[in-house]
């Protein structure tokens, strides 16, 4: 399976153009305010299958709020979310998980005292006769990790607290894709990681895309964005100022959109 992935990854250039219309998740005219503060207004966003969309924006641009609206933690005040073309209401993380949307939060996803298997199956334990079926869980977790080629951990039974930052992030991502998820939202997946570890996580993100998942990466780090993204979307003061194929951007242009909303918002 992993060989096929490599072949596909080679054949698929980073700059694949977004297909017309059929994005897996479509956000339409979304608005969200907290008291008098309008955090998001009239936001559109497409997250197509088999592509990595980078969501960029300066602090306070509304990246986190938008992510939480998709993940079911916040509910939008206006607008619509379409899942595979149908309007949906995502009221809780459970609803999101039910649709196949998984979110990997920076640093908040794993319990350090539990081992890798226990974390990957947390709150979705497999049972047999009312008791935990450790063997089945361990086998499935090992399979998922192997298919994502997360193979640097010494033992699948070591506590997550003993893993490196990159390994932790890899386990968190593997946990997210374990459940036949179709869209994975990654919040700053490479923040606080070293060069080698960053590469490890970005490779993993590419493998998710090659499996046909829709992936959204929230990142400040333009190096990572250009390394991994097929599409780039930029938020500025709660508005989506542009979204387009990554090949349509260069670094300077992205920075311009992030800091000033661009010259004339063509998104």
């Amino acid at each position, binding site marked *: 399976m992993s060989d096929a992935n490599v072949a596909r990854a080679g054949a698929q250039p980073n700059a694949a153009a977004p297909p017309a219309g059929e994005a897996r998740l479509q956000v339409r005219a979304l608005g969200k305010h907290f008291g008098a503060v309008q955090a998001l207004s009239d936001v559109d966003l497409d997250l197509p299958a088999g592509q990595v969309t980078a969501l960029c924006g300066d602090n306070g641009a509304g990246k986190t709020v938008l992510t939480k609206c998709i993940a079911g933690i916040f509910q939008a005040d206006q607008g619509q979310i379409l899942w595979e073309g149908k309007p949906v209401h995502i009221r809780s993380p459970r609803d999101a998980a039910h649709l196949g949307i998984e979110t990997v939060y920076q640093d908040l996803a794993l319990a350090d*005292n539990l081992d890798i298997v226990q974390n990957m199956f947390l709150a979705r334990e497999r049972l047999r006769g009312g008791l935990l079926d450790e063997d089945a869980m361990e086998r499935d977790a090992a399979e998922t990790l192997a298919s994502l080629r997360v193979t*640097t951990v*010494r033992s699948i039974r*070591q506590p997550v607290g003993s893993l490196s930052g990159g390994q932790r992030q890899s386990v968190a991502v593997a946990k997210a894709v374990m459940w036949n998820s179709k869209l994975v939202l990654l919040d700053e997946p490479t923040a606080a990681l070293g060069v080698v570890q960053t590469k490890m996580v970005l*490779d993993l993100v590419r493998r998710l895309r090659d499996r046909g998942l829709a992936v959204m990466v929230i990142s400040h780090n333009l190096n990572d964005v250009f390394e991994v993204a097929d599409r780039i979307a930029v938020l500025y003061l709660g508005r989506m100022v542009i979204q387009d194929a990554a090949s349509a951007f260069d670094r300077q242009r992205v920075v311009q959109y992030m800091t000033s909303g661009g010259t004339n918002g063509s998104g």
Partner: protein
Amino acid sequence: MARVEVPELPPDPTAATKVAELEVPPEIVAQTLGEYLRAWAARVRAGDSGVLPVIAGLAVITVVFQAISPHHVFLSALNLVNLLQQSAVFMVLAMAEGFVLLLGEIDLSVGYVAAVGGVIGVQLVQPATTRWPWWAAVVAALLACALIGAAQGTLITRLKLPSFVVTLAGFLIFNGVVLILLLLGPFSGYPSLLGDDTNRQVLYHLMWGTIDPLAGWIGMIVIVAGLGLALWLRDTRRRRSGLVAPPLGLTLLKIVLMAIVGLTVVAICNINRANIGTVAGVPWVIPIVLAVLGAWTVLLQRTSFGRYVYAIGGNPEAARRAGIKLASIRTWAFVICSFTAGIGGLLYASYLGGMSNNVNGGQLVLYAVAAAVIGGTSLFGGRGKVMHGALGGLVIGGIYNGMYLLGLDVQWQFIVTGLVLLSAVTIDALSRRGATTGSVAHV
């Protein structure tokens, strides 16, 4: 799972790998018993000693008290059985406390909640008043304790009050409740379990009744063989299907140790320990404590509920985002804590042969927390096993018993127990600081 090098990545910096190696439990990476022992020794040197301090503590207590107790009575059959009976109460209360400690909470009321359970049991079986059958009295006592746990747990989780304060209030309230319950009936505040009617006899025999020596041997062999076989089958199955499993030698070592402990305990209990006549046999309290230990170990290690308790103790935010209902799990942990305290209270009443206002619930709760922490349960949540409470309870029982033999006054018992608690907490805090990853610290 063996380490596989990924071709496109340079290997991890060796220094980082070495640090991480120390934190990996040796049993999951070692292939042979020798490797296991070496990995374990490395872990102990790095400050992560597991149950070692408790075992060492028990050894020190045994040697010291055997050497200095008058006529070297510490290791006599009479005293060892007495020690097990005294420790039983601390063990059960420590196992109770363990549930809330795992969540990073604390329950200061366990001592008096236990006393409430004890008084209810003793009062209800009195032939002069209520005349309840013993089983109904036991059920009523445990139910009352569980309800207390539900009430305290609800206040803590739904109103988000600190457990420290809620259970401190509970400490006072249930101290008062015990005094009220004691004064009911014509017993001048001293309802007793001494008497020849069946119901009082049964409660009295929870602690003092003995199992026929032959039945004791058979029971012990059945338990050890059953557990040993289950352990053996599980480990060989996992080893055969390529899952993480301890080396064969370690599995055997565990089974042999279990057999040695079983044989020793039954052999000692079956020695005639009376000065006049015959008193021999395993006290009923030992299988009762083992039942609590077994049931709660299964609950914590092998069910989703137990997994959630650990997850909440380790990282409540991760647990919440995974979809675990924190409030309900926490409340249930308080219910189980108080319920188990009720069992401890009934054993305590049985030990005393009745209840009186001499019950020192404050001392009991401190012993319970001390026993859990000495055993290796972390005060910071997420780390510890039911077994730790049981082992810690034995240490506390040993100290208590030894100082009693020396004729030391109660003030010295307090001071020594306090010092032991202090050193256990220090080890706990230091071993946390030694950990390379800064896990979420919360109290």
